[in-house]
């Protein structure tokens, strides 16, 4: 039977290479809970047991992805979902079938605690699963990958709401939506206008319109709304939970370039009853920010999945398609395309899995601090310090992963079409679907440009240095790896010179240089991750060498451009961009 976990050597390599036992220990509180303490009977006894569970879970996801989801993907893409006259949406029968199978496999409460029927998996394992689902059908990831909504409820809602709603997620009875965007509040969520108001008894209601809502037809809606009309910025927003009812209708289902299986809804709230999540005014600044961080790692995983699918198609085609008397993979230009695709997929995976690993450390540390029993003073101090440091590193790694993987998936999907040539342009192959599906990833959950704005702070404020320092201190037995490491150390020195230069310029120059700084930082980060992998595997050694040698000139180019201090894009905008075209 086909299996997207067992056929993927790189995921299996990382499963062994990354210390999942350590993640299991922090996820399961060192296994101090005796069996059945939480009213469940399927918890792991020790780290080895937990890691064995993770492997088995990924094997099941891999099988469902390959055997059920992937064969359905083309038809789902062709036919999409249906909007009904009464403002409800009927999911494509095959999407329903996919969700039913995932529910049968217990995969809809992936990271939720066992007391709510979840699997209590670390984020890293969920990221691996998300990638496999996305490889099978990128649009299904939008349903499978929305489990962050349940996580947000788990993190911030009161116990009553949690006990009521979370088991429904685990059982697959409900799916959720994060309801943030409005016609005039896209990237700038502080501008959200949808009103939340209370009646005399203190019950909350919602009124207004939301747009571009992924799975807005889901049963549980997490809605960002203005509860404090007198405060016009983000501090006037709170987060609410509304259940699907006649008081919230889908007015329009968007017609999109890709991810046709994922229903993108325009929602009308008409005095819709709802419940406040957590505290008033923390909706955007605390809860949605937390939700978005998880969702961004999810999009990175989604991007990895579609890129993996595109690479595999191109690799197979380059091997079987013969021109000029042999397979086209013997042509240097094609060979370079294919090897670049493969290296870039592995690069994105290295970065995203590292991000997920750090997220697991951050989340579990916070959980111990906020929900665990009181700690001794020294321990509390240590954990709080750790928390701040992890938060800073994650604040950099998360947007980097989302940015790098989404851009990479578009490049890989486009190049896959190129490898397939005319056939790739036709609907006969999935290459064009992969390219359409990949296109959204650089846009939603924050555009690439916004990810760079978020990530560059880490590059200029020392988070990069904090992360890199441990890796630079490693010594490699292999002289080639050691030599490559020295080159990365030099590159970081040059990057920091460029950062110092940018700091002497007006702040708009930082925004202008953001992408180049972030690109360079990402290349250094991934370079170190590849060196670590190379120390454990001979093939990875070659991947590390090729990646670093390929990127060194690119880093040099980026830094040179920064050091030029050129502000033409801002200062000469009107001149170079030309006049605004006349209407019509």
């Amino acid at each position, binding site marked *: 039977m086909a299996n997207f976990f067992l056929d993927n050597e790189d995921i299996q390599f990382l499963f062994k290479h990354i210390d999942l036992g350590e993640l299991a220990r922090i996820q399961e509180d060192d296994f101090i809970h005796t069996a059945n303490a939480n009213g469940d009977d399927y918890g792991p006894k020790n780290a080895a047991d937990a890691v064995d569970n993770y492997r*088995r879970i990924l094997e099941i996801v891999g099988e469902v992805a390959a055997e059920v989801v992937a064969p359905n993907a083309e038809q789902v893409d062709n036919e999409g979902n249906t909007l009904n006259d009464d403002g409800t949406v009927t999911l494509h029968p095959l999407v329903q079938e996919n969700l039913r199978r995932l529910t049968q*496999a217990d995969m809809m409460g992936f990271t939720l605690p066992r007391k709510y029927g979840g699997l209590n998996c670390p984020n890293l394992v969920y990221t691996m699963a998300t990638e496999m689902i996305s490889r099978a059908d990128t649009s299904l990831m939008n349903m499978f990958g929305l489990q962050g909504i349940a996580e947000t409820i788990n993190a911030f809602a009161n116990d009553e709401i949690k006990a009521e709603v979370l088991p429904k997620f685990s059982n697959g009875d409900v799916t959720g939506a994060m309801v943030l965007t409005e016609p005039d509040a896209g990237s700038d969520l502080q501008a959200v206008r949808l009103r939340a108001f209370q009646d005399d008894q203190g019950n909350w209601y919602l009124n207004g319109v939301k747009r571009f809502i992924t799975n807005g037809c889901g049963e549980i809606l997490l809605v960002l709304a203005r509860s404090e009309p007198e405060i016009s910025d983000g501090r006037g927003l709170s987060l609410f939970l509304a259940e699907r009812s006649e008081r919230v209708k889908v007015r329009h289902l968007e017609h999109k370039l890709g991810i046709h299986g994922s229903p993108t809804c325009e929602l009308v709230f008409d005095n819709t009853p709802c419940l406040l999540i957590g505290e008033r005014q923390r909706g955007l600044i605390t809860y949605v920010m937390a939700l978005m961080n998880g969702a961004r790692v999810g999009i990175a995983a989604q991007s990895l999945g579609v890129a993996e699918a595109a690479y595999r198609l191109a690799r197979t085609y380059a091997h079987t398609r013969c021109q000029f008397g042999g397979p086209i993979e013997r042509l240097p230009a094609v060979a370079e395309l294919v090897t670049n695709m493969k290296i870039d997929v592995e690069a994105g995976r290295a970065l995203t899995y590292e991000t997920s690993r750090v997220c697991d450390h951050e989340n579990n540390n916070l959980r111990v601090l906020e929900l665990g029993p009181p700690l001794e003073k020294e321990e509390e101090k240590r954990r709080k310090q750790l928390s701040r440091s992890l938060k800073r590193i994650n604040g950099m790694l998360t947007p980097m992963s989302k940015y790098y993987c989404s851009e990479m998936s578009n490049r890989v999907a486009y190049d896959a079409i190129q490898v397939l040539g005319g056939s790739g342009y036709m609907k006969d192959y999935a290459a064009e679907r992969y390219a359409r599906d990949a296109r959204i990833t650089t846009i939603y959950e924050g555009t690439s440009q916004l990810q760079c704005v978020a990530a560059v702070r880490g590059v200029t404020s020392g988070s990069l240095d904090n992360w890199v320092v441990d890796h630079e201190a490693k010594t490699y037995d292999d002289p080639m790896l050691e030599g490559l490491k020295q080159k990365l150390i030099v590159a970081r020195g040059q990057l920091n010179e460029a950062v110092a230069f940018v700091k002497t310029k007006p702040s708009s120059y930082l925004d202008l240089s953001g992408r180049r700084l972030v690109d360079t930082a990402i290349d250094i980060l991934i370079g170190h991750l590849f060196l670590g992998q190379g120390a454990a595997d001979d093939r990875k050694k070659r991947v590390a060498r090729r990646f670093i040698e390929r990127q060194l000139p690119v880093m040099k180019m980026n830094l040179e451009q920064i050091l030029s201090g050129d502000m033409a894009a801002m200062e000469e905008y009107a001149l170079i961009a030309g006049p605004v075209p006349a209407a019509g």
Partner: protein
Amino acid sequence: MAYDSIVCVKQVPDTANITAEAMKEDGTVNRAALPTIFNPEDLHALETALEVRDQYGGTVTVITMGPPKAADVLRDCLFRGADRAILLTDRKAAASDTLATSYILGQAIRTIGRYDLVFCGRQAIDGDTAQVGPQCAEKLGIPQVTYLEQFVSIHDRVARIRRNIGHGWEIVDVKLPAMITVIETANKPRPQAAKRVMKMKSARVPAEVAAEVKAAMPDASEEQLAAETKCRVDALKAAGLLIEQWDLAAINADLERCGLSGSPTKVHRIQAIVLTKEGYTDIPANETGIRQLVHELVVDRTWG
């Protein structure tokens, strides 16, 4: 109204992934060299039983006959939702042909007692006989429906079944209890449920426990081994993780009818056939070419 089902499953060599070591010098199957899998059509039989339970309530019990390793397929059944699993294992059952096997399975089903439906895969990929299900029905004296492709409904203890008849299908009604064999197109087997896997992955039959103990304590005496095995078996039982293991005595089987003595099948000759490529015919992609091809197919009776 709830219905109790029994599903007969088999662990088989994976004949789709044959390697050069698959056959011994004497032409018999080298089972040790072949990976084992869940017989594919038995998975569809299990799924049919689970769907009946989902819709009408009741229980699903799986049985398999084989060596202790066959407990693998029982665990798989438990992961997918079976309520109870039984391994029939006995050295005296070795070398059973389809007649002896169906006698043994029949005795086991009688021993289980109450049941409404017995499901089998149409056939196993190692023998391809499709005989065990129907023979088992004869042993039990119950009606049989073969080649199920859709379980339509049950009313008043009559099951309505759509069966494949090669050129199409027919719908038949059958009084319960009945034996039903299932084909691959009937359904898509559900995946293993992660929580059941996490809970039941350490489920074992006593014979597996004994083997594990022996491997863990190579220098121990027979008494020590027996004591440790008993200790572990009791612990598994207390945790609800002991898979039942029956021998031929447990099902009151007549030993004359089991194993070699109960198997009238005599292997006349084993032929090793090595398929070699024998050239090919180029069919021109035009009307004449196609007509010629059709003509040849009719002449050599591939068609018609």
